[in-house]
């Protein structure tokens, strides 16, 4: 009796499977025999990227800076292998940097005394401290050189008020970058390093950071051979932006140790927004079927 039940159930399952499979196949056949059989989702698409080089001068503005803002001028060179995959490089140098309101406030308000001697730029020695610019000790971003792959999954056209139409795509880039920075030089560590309370210790030293980088952006194509772009980019890495001695001693190294070294680096996302004008070569895009 039990065997018969199992056989019946198995037969029913197989029959149901066969029936459902044949129904699905039938539905699929109907779908692909229509007049749009094999037709692409979009016809006559201007392939703005495929097989073309893009050279784009860029201008980047850093965001959410605590002590110093930087404007970087640079250029991006991409080769678009397909319409949605590209490889390339981006390089920029920090042409303009300005101090933030926070930096100006610290400069004007922070006392120059024994308690701040290792952290705030000053002149003289205890007890005759004088004021020196705080902006001179805060870190600067000098250049960025990045190699990246760009993925362009979405494209279409933008209609504004039903009057202005422009081909648009959305992309994401990821890669690695070398970031040249200037931050407060190491001090207080012996081996010829000055004491961190010494006014000479507030000098900046050049360093190179290795960081991942990723970006999200829109490209607008007003013409066949040029484009406008806006991009959000992040370069996450740790650096000592304020030039403060904040870590190295005590529990978990969370207390000042009278030294400036890599332990005083703090993590930051280092965000920026970039605008660009792209030029494409060859100047005529291919048109899809």
């Amino acid at each position, binding site marked *: 009796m039990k065997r018969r039940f199992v056989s019946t159930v198995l037969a029913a399952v197989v029959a149901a499977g066969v029936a459902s499979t044949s129904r699905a196949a039938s539905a699929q056949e109907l779908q692909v025999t229509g007049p749009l059989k094999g037709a692409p989702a979009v016809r006559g698409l201007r392939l703005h990227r495929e097989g073309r080089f893009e050279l784009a001068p860029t201008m980047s503005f850093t965001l959410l800076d605590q002590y110093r803002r930087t404007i970087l001028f640079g250029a991006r060179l991409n080769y678009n292998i397909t319409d949605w995959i590209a490889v390339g490089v981006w390089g920029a140098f920090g042409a303009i940097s300005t101090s933030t309101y*926070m930096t100006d406030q610290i400069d004007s308000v922070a006392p120059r005394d024994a308690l701040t001697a290792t*952290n705030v730029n000053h002149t003289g020695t205890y007890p005759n401290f004088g004021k020196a610019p705080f902006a001179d000790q805060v870190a600067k971003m000098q250049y960025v050189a990045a190699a990246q792959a760009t993925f362009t999954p979405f494209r*279409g056209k933008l209609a504004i008020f039903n009057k202005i139409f422009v081909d648009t795509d959305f992309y994401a880039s990821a890669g690695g970058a070398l970031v040249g920075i200037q931050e407060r030089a190491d001090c207080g560590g012996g081996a010829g390093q000055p004491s961190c309370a010494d006014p000479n210790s507030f000098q900046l030293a050049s360093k190179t950071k290795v960081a991942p980088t990723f970006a999200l952006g829109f490209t607008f194509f007003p013409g066949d051979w040029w484009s406008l772009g806006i991009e959000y980019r992040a370069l996450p890495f740790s650096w000592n932006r304020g030039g403060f001695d904040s870590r190295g001693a005590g529990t978990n190294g969370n207390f000042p140790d009278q030294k400036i070294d890599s332990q005083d680096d703090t993590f930051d996302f280092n965000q920026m927004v970039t605008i660009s004008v792209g030029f494409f070569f060859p100047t005529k895009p291919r048109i899809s079927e």
Partner: protein
Amino acid sequence: MLLPQAAHAQKKKKPKGQTTAAPAPAPASADADAPAPGAAGAPASADADADATGKPADASAPAAGAAPAGGDQGGMDICQITPDAPQCTAAKEINFGEEAKKKVHAEVYAVQQQYVMKAHRFEIQPYWAFTLNDQFVSHPGPGMALNYYITQVMAVGVNGTWYGGLNGDSDFNFQNRRAARIAVPLNQYQFSGDVNFTYVPMYGKFAGFGDFIFNWDSFLEGGVGVIRTEPIAVIDPDNRKFDWNTLVNFDIGLGFRIFFTRWLAATLEVRDIMFFDKLENLQIGDTSAPASSPTSAYNPATWTDPNSHLTNDVQLQVGLSMFLPTSFEYRLPK
């Protein structure tokens, strides 16, 4: 439906004064009213009189698109297979001369029929807000927007965000206080709520990987409401205990919506909530004076800065958008 016929008519040059009519049937049928078919491949033409009657040249002939008499024998036309197909019978009733005189509405829209009709529908939009511009205190929180679309592009609604218990005082503040011996006045938020107008100036569709198409729109919104904020005591935390202040705010936003279905979408919006905030006073009052003194450090009147400060709370909102009712009917056919 008539496009193939129109295209066919355009390809053949006609003598002036003649209009295009249905070509002769593949096997030319005997019909006294119809002119004899011309050479192989030449379409039959009707004279002006025939047009004026409104009758086709050959009432029994298959309609336009049929192979010309003695013409391309290899081509197969739908009207040869099914002469009663709609496009074949319809052509018999159409006077092309009259049709050609009609005024053409030449405007063609980039997107002929919008994927989602929003007019007279409610939108429920739950979201999570992230702070974009405040590195001192973050103000994340859940929120909800309710909108009613008066037209396809215009809506009125309300939205609110709850920040209470979720404000985050960043480590950066502590590092500054300890290193430079200075403090920055900090404020936390409890909630904000606004009445908004929404305008949808942009919409369209994108192709994903050149393989599938998704629809999107972009909206602007602005409104007025209230926000409740409270200073965090950092200048004189021993003596100061603040209460919440209810302040008027103005907000503007720019959003982007990607539709998964005709009633469900993902939303991304940047909103700037602007208000004049009350900050903690940087000056500490007289600690030796009694609380009743107007200059006393213990008098709450001395705790806040007498000047209000314009504050922009820029937040990124990520959420879902649900339209009710979930279905709708287009006014015109596609």
